[in-house]
C-alpha cells in the first residue's frame, strides 16, 4: 500500500537528528560538496555546530554507511579502497580518566591504553563484520594476531575471535582498575598508538586488505578532556600508511592542537585538512538544502520542488498583510494640510513609504505633511533615508498588538534563518508542513505566510529551550539569549531616532578581570553551541580570542523574539553587562535599553510567544 504523501512528508522531514535516523540515515543522505575531501587519506577535521551534518557525514564514511550507499550489495565490500570505523566520544567514559589520584601525565598513559583497546576492539569488530558479510576470511596468521595481542598486553591468542574476546576482557579488567584507581594496582599499559600501528600494519599485509586503508572517524571530539585531545592529536600527527583519522568537532571544541611532545602541534594544512562546514557551505547552502529537501519530496512522491512551497512576501506585501492601512487610517486626515498634488503624490507611493513618513514625523514631533514635502523636495536624500529604515519599519507596524508582528517567509529567508545549519532548516520545513497539514491543506498547495512565520517562531522557541541541555552552561546560555533577545526585540520595535536593525554586539572592556574571564567562557560556550554566531570584528583576531568578534544571536531565534535576522549593526556591551543579563536580567535589560535612549514605559510589550517567560523578564521588578 502506498503511503499518503502527507504522512511521508511528515515522516521524512521529521527525521532531522542523525541519532534518530538509524536505518534511514543513509537512505536520506545527500552528499555535501566537501564530502570528496573527506575521503582522502589525509587526516581531516570537520568543524561545525550541532545540526550542521558532521555526524551524518562521518557515519556516511563508516563501513556501515558505505554498505548502505551501495544498496547493501555485499559483493562490493571487498572493492572499497578504504574502510571507515566510526566512534563517538562518550563523555561518561572519558571523564572516568581524571582525578587527583594520578598526575595528568599518568592519566594520559592510562587514557592512551584505553584508546588503543577501544579502537583495536572496533577494528576487530569490523573484521568480524567483514568476514560475515563477504564470506571471505581475513587471513591473519596466528603470529600476526599474536603480535597484535602482545602490543596490547593481552594473553596469547591465535584467532581473530580470540583477539576480539581478549580485548573485551581486557577492557573489563581495565574498568575495574579505573574504579579502584586509588589502590594503585599494577596495570600494564600499551604504548601510545603502537597497537593501532601493529594491527593495521598486519592487516594491509594480507591479501584481503593489500592496498587498502582504514579511517577512524572520531565524532564529538570536544567531549575529550584537554589532555585526552593531546593524546589523540599525537595519533593524528603520527598516523599514516595504513590508517588515518577524521574528527568531527564543534566550533571552539578543539581546544588544543598540541600533542604529547613538547613544542609539537598539529598544523593545517601540513598535518590535517580543515573543513569548516559553515565556511564551505556559506555560498552554496541554499543549493545544498534544496537538494536535501527535494530528495525527500521525491521520496514522498511530491512533484513540486521545495522552493515552490515557500513563497516569499515582498516588503510591500508584508506591510499590507500587517494591516498597515488600518494603522495609517485615511491619508487625507494623516496628511492634513497637504495640497491636492501632494496628496496625489502620496497616494502614488508604496503604502510602506507613507507609513515611514508618518513614523518619522511622529518621532520628530512634526507633521507628516512636512516629511512628505521634504521627501518631495529632495527625493534622492529621502530614498536613501527610507532605504535604511524600510525593513526596520516592518517591525513597528503591529507594535504592541496581539498576533503576528513580523513575517518571516520565503525559501531564501528559511535558509538565512537556519544560518547554514541543515538541522534547523529541516526543522523549519517540517514544522511548516506539519502546521500546513493541520489546516487541512495538502502537498498540492504552497505554505501560506502565516504558517511559515508561526513555524519559524516555534522552531526558534524549541531551539531556545533545547539550549538548556546542550552544555553545562546551558541554563546560563538560555538566560543570556532571553535577555539579549528582549533587548533586540524592543530596539526593533522602536527604531526611529536610533540606529536601525541593531542585532549584534561587541565587547568593549578589555583586560583580565574576573568578569572578562567569566564572559569569555560564557561566549565560547555560546558560540560552540550555536546560541550566538560570531564574525571577526574590525581587528584581526586569534581563533580563541572572544574579545575581537562581533556577536549575534543565531538567526534561528529571530522570529521568536521578533527582530531582524539580517546581520546589520551592532551595539557595545561591557563584560559585566553580559554577565548581569544572565544574573539580573530585568534591571540589566532596562539599563541597556536606557543607554540607547529608550525609556521603560515605552518598551514594546512582550510578543505573545514571550509571555511564557514573563516571570523571567519581570524578576525582581
Amino acid at each position, binding site marked *: 500500500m502506498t503511503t499518503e504523501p502527507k504522512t511521508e512528508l511528515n515522516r521524512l522531514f521529521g527525521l532531522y537528528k542523525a541519532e534518530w535516523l538509524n536505518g534511514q540515515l543513509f537512505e536520506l543522505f545527500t552528499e555535501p560538496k566537501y564530502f570528496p575531501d573527506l575521503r582522502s587519506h589525509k587526516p581531516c577535521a570537520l568543524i561545525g555546530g550541532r545540526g550542521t551534518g558532521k555526524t551524518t557525514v562521518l557515519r556516511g564514511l563508516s563501513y556501515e554507511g558505505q554498505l548502505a550507499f551501495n544498496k547493501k550489495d555485499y559483493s562490493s565490500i571487498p572493492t572499497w579502497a578504504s574502510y571507515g570505523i566510526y566512534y563517538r566520544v562518550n563523555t*561518561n567514559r572519558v571523564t572516568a580518566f581524571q582525578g587527583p589520584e594520578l598526575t595528568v601525565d599518568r592519566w594520559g598513559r592510562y587514557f592512551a591504553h584505553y584508546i588503543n583497546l577501544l579502537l583495536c576492539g572496533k577494528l576487530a569488530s569490523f573484521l568480524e563484520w567483514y568476514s560475515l558479510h563477504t564470506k571471505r576470511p581475513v587471513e591473519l596468521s596466528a603470529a600476526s594476531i599474536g603480535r597484535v595481542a602482545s602490543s596490547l598486553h593481552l594473553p596469547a591468542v591465535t584467532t581473530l575471535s580470540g583477539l576480539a574476546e581478549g580485548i573485551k576482557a581486557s577492557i573489563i579488567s581495565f574498568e575495574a582498575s579505573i574504579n579502584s584507581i586509588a589502590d594503585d594496582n599494577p596495570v600494564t599499559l600499551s604504548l601510545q598508538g603502537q597497537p593501532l600501528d601493529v594491527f593495521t600494519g598486519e592487516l594491509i599485509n594480507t591479501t584481503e586488505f593489500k592496498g587498502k586503508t582504514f579511517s577512524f572517524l572520531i565524532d564529538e571530539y570536544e567531549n575529550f578532556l584537554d589532555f585526552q585531545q593531546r593524546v589523540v592529536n599525537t595519533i593524528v600527527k603520527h598516523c599514516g600508511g595504513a590508517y588515518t583519522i577524521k574528527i568531527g568537532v564543534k566550533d571552539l571544541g578543539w581546544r588544543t592542537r598540541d600533542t604529547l611532545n613538547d613544542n609539537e602541534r598539529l598544523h593545517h594544512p601540513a598535518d590535517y585538512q580543515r573543513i569548516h562546514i559553515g565556511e564551505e557551505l556559506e555560498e552554496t547552502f541554499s543549493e545544498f538544502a534544496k537538494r536535501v529537501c527535494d530528495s525527500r519530496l521525491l521520496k514522498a512522491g511530491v512533484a513540486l520542488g521545495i522552493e515552490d512551497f515557500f513563497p516569499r512576501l515582498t516588503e510591500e506585501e508584508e506591510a499590507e498583510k500587517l494591516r498597515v492601512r488600518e494603522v495609517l487610517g485615511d491619508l487625507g486626515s494623516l496628511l492634513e494640510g497637504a495640497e491636492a498634488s501632494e496628496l496625489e503624490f502620496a497616494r502614488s507611493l508604496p503604502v510602506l513609504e507613507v507609513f515611514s513618513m508618518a513614523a518619522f514625523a511622529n518621532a520628530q514631533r512634526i507633521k507628516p505633511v512636512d516629511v512628505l514635502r521634504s521627501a518631495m523636495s529632495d527625493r534622492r536624500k529621502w530614498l536613501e533615508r527610507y532605504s535604511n529604515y524600510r525593513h526596520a519599519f516592518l517591525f513597528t507596524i503591529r507594535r504592541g498588538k496581539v498576533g503576528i508582528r513580523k513575517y518571516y517567509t520565503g525559501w531564501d529567508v528559511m535558509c538565512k534563518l537556519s544560518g547554514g545549519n541543515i538541522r534547523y532548516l529541516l526543522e523549519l520545513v517540517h514544522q511548516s508542513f506539519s502546521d500546513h497539514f493541520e489546516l487541512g491543506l495538502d502537498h498540492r498547495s504552497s505554505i501560506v505566510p502565516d504558517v511559515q512565520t508561526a513555524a519559524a517562531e516555534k522552531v526558534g522557541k524549541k531551539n531556545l529551550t533545547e539550549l538548556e541541555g546542550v552544555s553545562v552552561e546551558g541554563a546560563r546560555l538560555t538566560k543570556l539569549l532571553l535577555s539579549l533577545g528582549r533587548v533586540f526585540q524592543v530596539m526593533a520595535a522602536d527604531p526611529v531616532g536610533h540606529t536601525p536593525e541593531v542585532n549584534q554586539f561587541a565587547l568593549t572592556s578589555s583586560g583580565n578581570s574576573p568578569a572578562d574571564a567569566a564572559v569569555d567562557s560564557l561566549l565560547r560556550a555560546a558560540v560552540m553551541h550555536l546560541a550566538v554566531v560570531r564574525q571577526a570584528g574590525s581587528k584581526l583576531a586569534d581563533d580563541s580570542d572572544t574579545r575581537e568578534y562581533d556577536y549575534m544571536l543565531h538567526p534561528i531565534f529571530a522570529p521568536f523574539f521578533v527582530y531582524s535576522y539580517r546581520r546589520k549593526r551592532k551595539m557595545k556591551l561591557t563584560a559585566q553587562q553580559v554577565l548581569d543579563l544572565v544574573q539580573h536580567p530585568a534591571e540589566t535589560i532596562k539599563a541597556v535599553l536606557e543607554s540607547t535612549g529608550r525609556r521603560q514605559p515605552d518598551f514594546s510589550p512582550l510578543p505573545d510567544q514571550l509571555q511564557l517567560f514573563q516571570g523571567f523578564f519581570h524578576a525582581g521588578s
Partner: protein
Amino acid sequence: MPVRDEPLPVQVFEQTTAFTPPTAAVYIYGHLPEDRSEHVESWRNANSGTRAIEITSQSSAEIELKIGDASVKLPLRSARQLSSFWSSFAGSDVYMDITGLEHQVWAPLLQTAIANRVSLYVVYVEPAKYSYSPTPTDGQIFDLSARISGIAPLPGFANLADQASTDDWFIPLLGFEGTRLRHVIEHVQPAADRIIPVIGIPGFRPEYPFHAYLGNKGALEETESWASVRYAQANCPFSLYYLLKSISRDRPNGTLMIAPIGTKPHGLGAILFKIASQRAVEIIYDHPVRSKKRTEGTDRLFVYSISAFLGSARP
C-alpha cells in the same frame, strides 16, 4: 504484586525528632547547605551511645571524616581502603544518612558497604519545601542547582566497554529540573522511542508530580516520551527498584542507562539496582552543584533497611 513478594522495608517517622538511632549503632552523615541535613544535631548531643561519624568534606575523589578526635581522609575509588573502613564496624548496625551527602559520596560508600556485607540502613529526610527560582525559565522553575558540573561516572561506577546498541534503553528518573533532563539527553542521544521517564508518584507532596511534568515538559514533548512515563513512589527506593526490575524483565536486551536526576530515594533505588543486577546497567549522572538554601525545613524521615531488602530481593 503481593507485598510479600516485593517487600518495602521502610520505617517512616513523621518528624525527625521522633527518630533516634540505636545506642550501639554507627551513624554516618554529612552536611549540605540545607536545613534538613542538620537534624542529626537534635539527637547527637543527647545520645552518647551511638557512634556518630561526621563527613566533614566531600569531593568526587575523597571524603574527610571525623572519627573521634581524628580526621581521616578516605579515597572513594579505593576498594581496599573502603573495605578497611567498613571492616572497622564489623558486628554493628550502620546507619548512613544520605540527606547531607552528595551522590558521588554515598553511592561508592553504599556499594562497598554491600560488598563487605555491612548491616546497613540508609536514612533520608524530606525537605519541607523547595526554593523557587528568582529568574524562572521553562526548565528551571525551582532554584535547586547553581549549575551542572558535567557528566562523569560516580566513583566506582565507571563503564568503559563501548557497547552502545540499538537495544539500549534510557531511563531518566525525573526531578523538577528540565535543564538536567535535556543535558543528559543531549549526551546520551537515545532514540526517541527508547526513553522511559520515571516520575515520583506519589510525590513528597501531592503537587510535586505536576512540577515534575511542568519542569520537564519541553523534553518530554519533543521526544514524545511523555507517552512512556512510568511511576514509582518518590520517597521509596525499593518501589523504584521493583519498577526497574519490571522494565528490565520486559526488555532483556541492551543496556539500561539510568539517569538519577530526581529524588535521592530514587537515586538510591537506581544504585541498588545497578549493584544487584546481572545485566548491563549504566548510571548517567550530571553532578549538579546545589544552590545554597535550595530547600527549607524538614519533613518526614525515612529509614531504609538495605540489608533486609537485598536479602529478599532478586534482580
